[in-house]
C-alpha cells in the first residue's frame, strides 16, 4: 500500500510557541471572586454561629483579632491568585488539537489531540449560569490527568466549541 510520506522537519512543525491563546471571559473573574467570597462568608458565618451558641470567648479581643488577621492572610492572597489565574488561563483550538494553559506560580500547558478525545461536555455551575457562562470539559482515556476543563466560556462559545470538537471526534471515527 502506497501513501505519500514526505519528510517533515521538526523545526517546521506547528509549535506551541506560536500559539495565540484566547483568554477566558472577563465575567469569569467575577464568578471566581464571588465563589471565594461565598466560601469565606460561610466560614465567617460558622465562626459567628459558634461564638454565639458555644463560646462567647470567640468574640473577645485577642482571639477575634487573630482570626480576622488569619482571614485576611488567607483571603487576600486567595483573591489575588484567583485574579492572576484568570489572567494566565488560556486555550487555543488548532486544526487537530486543543491546547490549554493555566497556573500562576506553577504553569502548565497541555495538548490534547482530537483523535484521542473520547467525548466532551458542557456544564454550568449556579453562579456561572447567572453570568451566562459555561465550562467545556474534554475527556480522554488518560483519565483525570489529561481531561481538560475550560471554565468561564461564554455559553454560546462553549456550545460552538463542543460542536466543533464533537464533529472532530466523529470524523476521526469514520476514517
Amino acid at each position, binding site marked *: 500500500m502506497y501513501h505519500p510520506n514526505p519528510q517533515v522537519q521538526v523545526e517546521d512543525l*506547528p509549535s506551541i510557541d506560536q500559539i495565540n491563546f484566547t483568554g477566558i471571559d472577563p465575567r469569569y473573574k467575577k464568578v471566581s471572586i464571588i465563589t471565594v467570597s461565598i466560601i469565606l462568608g460561610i466560614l465567617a458565618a460558622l465562626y459567628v454561629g459558634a461564638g454565639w451558641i458555644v463560646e462567647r470567648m470567640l468574640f473577645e479581643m485577642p482571639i477575634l483579632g487573630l482570626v480576622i488577621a488569619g482571614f485576611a492572610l488567607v483571603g487576600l492572597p486567595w483573591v489575588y491568585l484567583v485574579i492572576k489565574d484568570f489572567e494566565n488561563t488560556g486555550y487555543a483550538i488548532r486544526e487537530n488539537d486543543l491546547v490549554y494553559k493555566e497556573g500562576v506560580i506553577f504553569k502548565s*500547558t497541555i495538548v490534547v489531540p*482530537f*483523535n484521542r478525545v*473520547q467525548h466532551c461536555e458542557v456544564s454550568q455551575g449556579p453562579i456561572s449560569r447567572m453570568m451566562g457562562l459555561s465550562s467545556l470539559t474534554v475527556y*480522554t*482515556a*488518560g483519565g483525570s490527568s*489529561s481531561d481538560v476543563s475550560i471554565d468561564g466560556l461564554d455559553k454560546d462559545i462553549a456550545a460552538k466549541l463542543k460542536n466543533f470538537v464533537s464533529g472532530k471526534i466523529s470524523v476521526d471515527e469514520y476514517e
Partner: protein
Amino acid sequence: MSMSNLDFSQPQRQSYIAIITILGKTIWSVTRQILPAVAVIFIGGAKNKTDQIIYFVIGAALLTCVYSIINFFKTYYYIDEDELILETGIIGRKRISIPFTKIQTIDSEQSLIHRLFGVTKVKVDTAGGDKTEFELAAIDLDIAQGLRDLLIHKKEESTIAIQNDNSENQERAQTGLAEQKEIMHIDTGELWRIGITSNHLRSSWLIIAFGAWIFNMLDDMGLDFQESYEDVDSSIFNFNSIMMLTMIIVIISIMISLVGAVVRHYDLRFFRTSRGFKMVAGLLTKKEVSAQDHKIQYIEWSQNLLQRSIGISEMTLHQASSDALKSKQKIMIPGMNRDQIDLVTSTLFDRKDIEKLPQKSIDYSYFTRFSTIIVVLSIVLSSIAYFFISYKSIVFISLFGIWMIITRFVRFRKSGYGYDDDHIWIKGGFIDGKYALLPTYKIQAIKLLQSPFQRRNSLCNINFVTAAGQIGVAYIPYTEGKYMLDRYIYEVELNSKTWM
C-alpha cells in the same frame, strides 16, 4: 477441544462449588468488619447487653448468607448471538451484557477450594469507559476453557468482520487459539532467587505497619499500654536491644519476602499467546492473567542492586484501564533475564537491547535546587527547634535533611531519558533502577509544567499521559520539552494507528 459438546446458548448456573466460595467470601468480609467489635466484647468482658448485640450480628450474617445462596440459584450466564450475558439478582434483576468485541481480557483465578473441586473463577474485563464487568465465582474447568476459547474465537470473528481489510488479523485468527509459546517458567531454584533478591524494604514497612495495627487493635480493646511502659526499666532501650530489634526485623523481612515470592510466583509460567501475553502463577490461589498486545500502553522494568548481581529484573505490563492506575490492570512478571525482556520488547515493539539506548541526562539543578531548599528549610527548622524545643532535634533535622539530599542525588544520577521516531524511554529509580518504554502513538496528551525557578532557567517537566497512567521526566531543558511535545503531538495526530 471439546467445544462442540458445550452449549452456552442455554442459560446455566455456575458450579455448585460457587456456593462455598461465595459463602466463604461473605463470611470473611463480615468477620473482618465485626472482628474488632467481637474482640472488644470478649476481651473487654463487659457482659451487659452484649448478648443482644451478638444475636443481632449473627442474625445479620445469616441473612447475608441466605441472600447469597438464593442469589446463586438466581444467577445465570449464557451467550446470545454476539453477546455474553449474566443475569443476577433476587428482587431487582440485573442483566449485564457484553458484546464480544468489547471483551478485553478473560482472567481466571483458582483458590485452594477451587482446585480441590476442579473449578475456577472467571473474570471478563471490558475496555475503556464502561464499567461492565463479569465475574463467575466458580465454574467447571472444562466449561471455563470452552467458554474462554469460544469467547476468544467469537471476539476474533467479530473483530475480523469489522476490520475485514486487515489481512494480518485474519492470518493470526487462522493460526489457532490454543497456540501459545512459553517464554519463561520459574522453578524452585529460580523462585528462591527471586525471593532473596526482592525488595525487603517493602516487607519491613509491612512489618512496621502490621505492628502498628496490632498495637492499635489492642489499644482499642482497652489494654492500657501507658501503664506497662512505666513499669519497664528504661535501660532496656539501649544500643544492644535496638540492634536486636533491627536484626529481627531484617530476618522477618527476608522471610516475608521469601514466603510472599513463593505464594505469589509459585510455578509461574509466562506465555506468548496469539495476540498477547499470559501469566499463570500462585501457590494457594492460582491466578491466570492475560494482556493483549493492543491493550498494553507501556512497559516498565526495574532492577535493584541484588537483582542486578544475578541479572534478573521485574517487568510490568501497563494496560489501559477505565479508572487510571488501577493496580489490577498491571501485570508484574518477576525474575526476567535480559533475553526474556528482549523477547517481550521485540514481539511487542520490535526493539531489542533497550537498556543500551542512548540516554540524555536531566539538568543538574534537579539536585542543586532541591538541596538548596532542603538546606534553607533545615536551618529555619533547626533554629525554631533550638529556641522552642531542644537542641537534640537539630540532629534529627540535619540527619533527615542529609538523607533527603543523598536520595535526591542518587535519583538525579539515575534519571535519564531518550526518544526516537517510535518510542520514548525514561530512566529513573532510587534503590532500584527503573526503565519505562512508551510507544509514541499510545500518548493521549502531553503536558509541560514549569515552576518559577524552571521558567527563569529555561527548564521544564514533561508528562506523557497514556490510558494506563502518566509517566514523565523532570528538569529537562525547555527547548527539549517543547521539541518533544511538538513532535509527538504531530505524530499522534497524523498516525492512524489506534492506541487500543
